[in-house]
């Protein structure tokens, strides 16, 4: 069992060690690290990034890349506000359907350009990034929206416990939604035929085509899934911050991308796991959390995180340099 895990998931195994090492170090270095309150807040804070991460994972597995999802999430938030208004308020069920559908629609825009016009994914998503963001800022004039339906911004606590010192440890709705998204993505890519086709398509697109895999379906599935996760993540983000800010999410796409790739998903397709995603996001979050607890200036967080990612990438490439050479003809 352990042996099979080490063989089939070498990246994940190494990341798990790193996470354990960080946890061990931080529990020794700080009293407040290994507490329920700290862990629940860590989960609350990473929920949205994890939702996006598993969406991006599916795109990466299928051999694509998506830069536009964070901006797409902003678009979904804004449009959803007006949709809810038009519907007379809405509720959570409608919220998920609307956010998911809007996200899928934006994902399909990417998929259409990629599949029907044979444009490579990085070019498409950079273009749609600019188009989505520019149009959103143009039409909203950068206005913030605070007047949101109550159901949307109310904190829903799914787990709470008072700790010995009187503080409350709570888990909020986004954590539950994140768990469902993780589970659904795991089910999709590991247990369904379409998920395995996605792996095959990312691994060897020409071979997949010859075997009769429906290529259009693969692109629309991958980008549709990413879009759905972007929309749901956007919905949850509003639940946490209780406002809609058109340019609040811009830049998050690269952080999530870095975490997912740190988690072993391969640019170029065919490799990646939900566990790796979680570990990649967690390493970044734990580092920030630890620095915070140790009283390091928040301005230093990103620097340390960047350095850690840089070192991790270099180290993982060094030990695998012999086996995993850059593919012939470059890296892409």
């Amino acid at each position, binding site marked *: 069992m352990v042996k099979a895990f080490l063989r089939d998931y070498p990246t994940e195994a190494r990341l798990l060690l790193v996470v354990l090492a960080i946890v061990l170090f931080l529990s020794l270095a700080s009293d407040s690290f290994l507490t329920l309150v700290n862990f629940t807040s860590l989960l609350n804070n990473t929920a949205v990034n994890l939702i996006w991460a598993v969406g991006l994972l599916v795109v990466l597995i299928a051999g694509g890349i998506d830069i536009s999802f964070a901006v797409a999430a902003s678009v979904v938030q804004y449009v959803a506000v007006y949709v809810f208004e038009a519907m007379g308020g809405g509720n959570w069920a409608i919220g998920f359907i609307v956010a998911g559908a809007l996200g899928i629609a934006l994902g399909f825009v990417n998929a259409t350009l990629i599949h029907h016009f044979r444009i490579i994914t*990085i070019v498409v998503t950079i*273009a749609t990034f600019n188009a989505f963001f520019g149009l959103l800022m143009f039409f909203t004039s950068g206005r913030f929206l605070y007047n949101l339906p109550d159901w949307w911004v109310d904190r829903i606590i799914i787990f709470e416990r008072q700790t010995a010192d009187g503080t409350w440890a709570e888990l909020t709705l986004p954590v539950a939604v994140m768990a469902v998204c993780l589970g659904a993505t795991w089910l999709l890519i590991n247990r369904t035929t379409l998920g395995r086709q996605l792996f095959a398509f990312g691994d060897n697109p020409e071979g997949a085509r010859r075997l009769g895999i429906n290529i259009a379906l693969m692109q629309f599935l991958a980008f549709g899934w990413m879009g759905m996760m972007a929309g749901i993540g956007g919905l949850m983000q509003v639940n946490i911050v209780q406002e809609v800010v058109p340019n609040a999410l811009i830049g998050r796409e690269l952080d999530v991308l870095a975490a997912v790739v740190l988690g072993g998903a391969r640019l170029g397709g065919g490799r990646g796991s939900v566990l790796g995603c979680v570990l990649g996001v967690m390493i970044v979050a734990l580092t920030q959390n630890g620095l915070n607890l140790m009283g390091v200036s928040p301005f230093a967080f990103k620097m340390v995180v960047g350095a850690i990612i840089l070192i991790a990438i270099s180290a993982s490439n060094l030990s695998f340099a012999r086996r995993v050479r850059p593919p012939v003809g*470059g890296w892409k």
Partner: protein
Amino acid sequence: MSRLVKRLRATYGDDVLGLVAFLLLVVIGFSLATPRFLSAANFDSMAFQLPVLGLLTLAMLAPIISGGLNLAIIFTANISGLTLAAILNYYGGVDAPFWAFVLGAGAALLVGAFFGFLMGAVIAYVGAHPILVSLAMMIFLRGLGEFLTRGGDISGFPDYLKPIGHGFILGVPVPLIIFAVVAFAMHVLLSHTRHGFSVYMIGSNIDATRYSGVHTQRTLTLIYTISGLLCAIAGILMLTRFNSVRVGHGEALLLVTVLACFLGGVDPFGGFGRVVPVVLALVILQVLSSGLNLLGANQHLSTAVWGLFLIAVMVLRFVVGRVRERFEKRRN
């Protein structure tokens, strides 16, 4: 007439002629739409805005040709600008002597080149994916900058810097002169030198290039070092243009540089791309942005138009390719 077209096509290629034709179209369109477009004031404002984006795009171009990408360009420019600002401030801020500027500019160039070198070395000698390395470097530099500046601005520079950002020499804006010199140097480097030659070859197939006796690792390291150096020049120019330095300044330009490269016909997979069409693409983007601005649209609409424009160009390329294919089939 047709012979002339043929000659031009042979000398400059279809891509350049297509871009020139499009540029003319856009210019004529805006001239008809608003009389202010063909004014000296508008030309000056375009000439002052173009160079920063232009320098950053050139910093992006060379790595893309080598089959990679440099996502850290903006923050490399920021950190370089920060270096200059720090040295100027140390020697008296507004009263800093000119030699302090020379010293600071030198240090800024060194810092930019250093971070470029670091990235290049990791990419070349470790074999890590350029997107990952530069992404991690981007996160690191952003963190470093925010740590050093605590997220604030640095301003208050000597008056003699004004002409660099705002002055004219023989009626030509100084930033434009700087950009023209750098663009020419990059053109010569890429199209006419051994080093540039190797960069194209590496972009197409790094292994075959190495087998041919080219020092591919040194070439790659050098290309990222040069990219860092160009970022530093852009950073210095940004300092003199805005009279302040803030980490994150110009962040939105990152994806625009990639867009300009793709618009200029650079192959996203590496191996192909030239300075001249990329400069033309830059001019088109600038004209679009300035023209829309004159028509009363804001910067965000320009961003959207840029994105839509890239999509339109790629779709058009696809359609033209299809039509040509059909045509040739029928002729046979």
